């Protein structure tokens, strides 16, 4: 098995030791009805409605979707049109919290007897992939067990992005939830083996998990080298099993399912309490954060500006959802925390080094985990040569950013790859 390429980054995991605390409940929450790929939810509440903690406020009959719940009790102040980062517009419920946190009377642990009821319960929990991509979890679980049987569940606890420690804190603080969650998935889906993949820069988490799973035969703890992008889906599948998820395939084609560690723990918590996904553990860090850097349970819908204020990062020039390698820039700090967020990073410095001419040094090719050739993709993109772009397999690019990072001419190669992908007609 070859080692895939990648880069070594400063880990900057300064919030490692920060135990998670509850973020003070904000006065206002803004909850968009579209928080991940797939269909947006219909807003189930209207202006003036009273809501309670855990009450379902958004849902849809569409296949690729997950319901949305209220993280607080209070009043719906308004239902507004909300501009998503991708340019689309969806509805968003604005909730004025009353501070009482009255729990919705319908909250009860779900009844689970078999695979179908398990998947239905996961859907009701509103759970989406918590690692970043935000794929609705129940769809992932509802794979075709006949056509693509799955023999290995991979738990992604690599957390290879710098700064972020929220998955690490999940492992340390809620070890039992993680293990019970794994066992539940294994039980109801009939997956014989689980491999929990943790990067070797978290030795205490590895130790803890090893000791707690010592007599569970079906769970294996794997130590992976810390190298970015270890936690990317295809990379972690390869590192954990040696299997290659080929072009156009899903991990299920290779008999594996990858789940983020916080997602699997959340499944267990929901089955015990019936409380859907309404808060996220968020790492708040970055050089613009002047106080209170750490991990917080933040109600979904909390405006990022409240977090920045709490952490003294009002002077930030650049604010990210997620890590510095793949994170998304906020254009307005009134944007809220969403289900798939795991970090808010604030930096003093916004701009990157100036772009200069490509010197054909080949570093972009040498660092790409998938051995793509960004230098040639850029040329083909400029020439709008779609056939060449197909030959160069630009559609395989996962936007990990290693190429842009490594380029001494600081060319925005990863970005160009995404633009180039858009030129290729979809089948």
């Amino acid at each position, binding site marked *: 098995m070859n080692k895939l390429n990648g880069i070594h980054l400063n880990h900057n995991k300064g919030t490692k030791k920060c135990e998670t605390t509850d973020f003070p409940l904000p006065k206002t929450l803004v909850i968009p009805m579209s928080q991940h790929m797939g269909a947006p939810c219909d807003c189930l509440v209207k202006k003036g409605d009273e809501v309670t903690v855990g009450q379902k406020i958004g849902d849809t009959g569409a296949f690729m979707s997950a319901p949305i719940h209220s993280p607080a009790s209070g009043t719906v102040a308004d239902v507004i049109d909300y501009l998503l980062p991708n340019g689309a517009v969806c509805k968003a419920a604005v909730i004025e919290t009353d501070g009482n946190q009255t729990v919705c009377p319908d909250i009860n642990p779900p009844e689970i007897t078999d695979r179908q009821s398990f998947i239905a319960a996961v859907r009701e929990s509103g759970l989406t992939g918590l690692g970043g991509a935000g794929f609705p979890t129940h769809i992932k679980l509802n794979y075709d067990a006949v056509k693509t049987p799955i023999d290995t569940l991979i738990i992604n606890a690599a957390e290879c992005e710098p700064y972020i420690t929220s998955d690490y804190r999940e492992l340390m603080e809620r070890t039992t939830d993680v293990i019970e969650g794994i066992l539940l998935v294994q039980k109801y889906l009939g997956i014989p083996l689980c491999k929990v993949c943790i990067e070797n820069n978290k030795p205490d988490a590895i130790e803890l998990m090893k000791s707690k799973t010592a007599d569970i035969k079906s769970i294996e703890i794997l130590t992976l080298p810390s190298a970015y992008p270890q936690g990317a889906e295809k990379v972690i599948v390869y590192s954990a099993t040696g299997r*290659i998820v080929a072009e156009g395939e899903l991990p299920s084609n290779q008999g594996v399912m990858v789940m983020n560690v916080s997602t699997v723990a959340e499944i267990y918590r929901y089955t015990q309490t019936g409380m859907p996904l309404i808060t996220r553990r968020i790492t708040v860090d970055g050089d613009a954060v002047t106080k209170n850097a750490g991990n917080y349970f933040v109600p979904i819908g909390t405006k990022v500006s409240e977090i920045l204020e709490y952490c003294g990062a009002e002077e930030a020039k*650049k604010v990210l959802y997620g890590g*510095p390698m793949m994170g998304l820039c906020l*254009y307005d700090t009134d944007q809220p925390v969403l289900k798939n967020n795991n970090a808010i990073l604030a930096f003093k410095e916004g701009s990157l080094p100036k772009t*200069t*001419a490509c010197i054909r040094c080949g570093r972009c090719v040498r660092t790409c985990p998938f051995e793509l050739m960004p230098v040639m993709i850029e040329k083909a993109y400029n020439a709008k040569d779609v056939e060449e772009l197909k030959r160069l397999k630009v559609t395989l690019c996962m936007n990990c950013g290693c190429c*842009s990072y490594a380029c001494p*001419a600081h060319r925005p190669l990863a970005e160009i790859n995404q633009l180039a992908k858009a030129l290729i007609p979809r089948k």
Partner: protein
Amino acid sequence: MKGLFVSPSPHRATNMSTAKIMLMVIIALLPSAAAGCIFFGPRAAAVLAVCVISCVVFEALSRIVMKREQTVSDLSAIVTGLLLGMNLPATIPFYIAVIGSFIAIVIVKQLFGGIGQNFANPAIAARIVLMLSFTPQMSNWVKPYWYSNAVDAETSATPLAAQWLNYTENGSSFKMAPFTLSEMFWGETGGCIGETCAAMLILGGLFLIITKVISAATPVAFIGSFALLTFIYTGSLTETAYDVLAGGLLIGAFFMATDYATTPITTKGKIIFGIGCGLITFIIRTFGSFPEGVSFSILLMNLLTPYIDRLTKTSPFGAKKPVKAEKN
């Protein structure tokens, strides 16, 4: 709060830059350049200075005339000037050195769009043009330390030229030219300013390999294939070592065949490039009508680089080969 800086990911960048890479190459070249100055005196230093300064001036002027962004600060013109100077004899008239700089920077590099765009190595192309246009001046070699009184200022043959004369005039077999292997290794022989001191060239080359500025693939393939062919042909290890140390092989293999712009990108491509250079150098040196073939071999392989690049595309992780339409 609005007015945030928004850019696509990633939000981190390496602290490497083109200028830093060029600076490393300059550092790697300095020991051999210094050795050249010690052997061939102040005149050698003056030639290097003329080349570097004229290259930088031509680079700056070309960018101004073409109304393009100024690129002098990327230091690549200094590298070209240094390499060109190191590939000239210490006795070269200054105006010829300036003509060489003009060819390298203006014609070979800037007319094709500047750094990264040229298809031939500027210093090599300039050296070849000068060699063909000013043959006598370009082969006016002097003995090391000719500038001091200890040695009379007579001209000297380079190891290769001596060997070649020996070969063509006295007939068949290779005969050792009048230099010992140790003189060859330390560079106390006739030749271009920067090509004689094998020890310092290897030191500089290793520095670039260790700092990952260049890949070891090219020099290993180049020197290795050349040495192997020479050994098979001559059957003598000493002869092989002599030929490897002689002429521009080491400076070519470490510093010119590793130029980013004009050589293949992938490791496979670099190996093909290196072997091609080794083979052509061997053929020219052994059977050709020039004593030296390194420059020609690199130039020829430069021309093949786009094809090598096309042939050695990587096969991406998990890529499926296009399914060929089945014939009925």
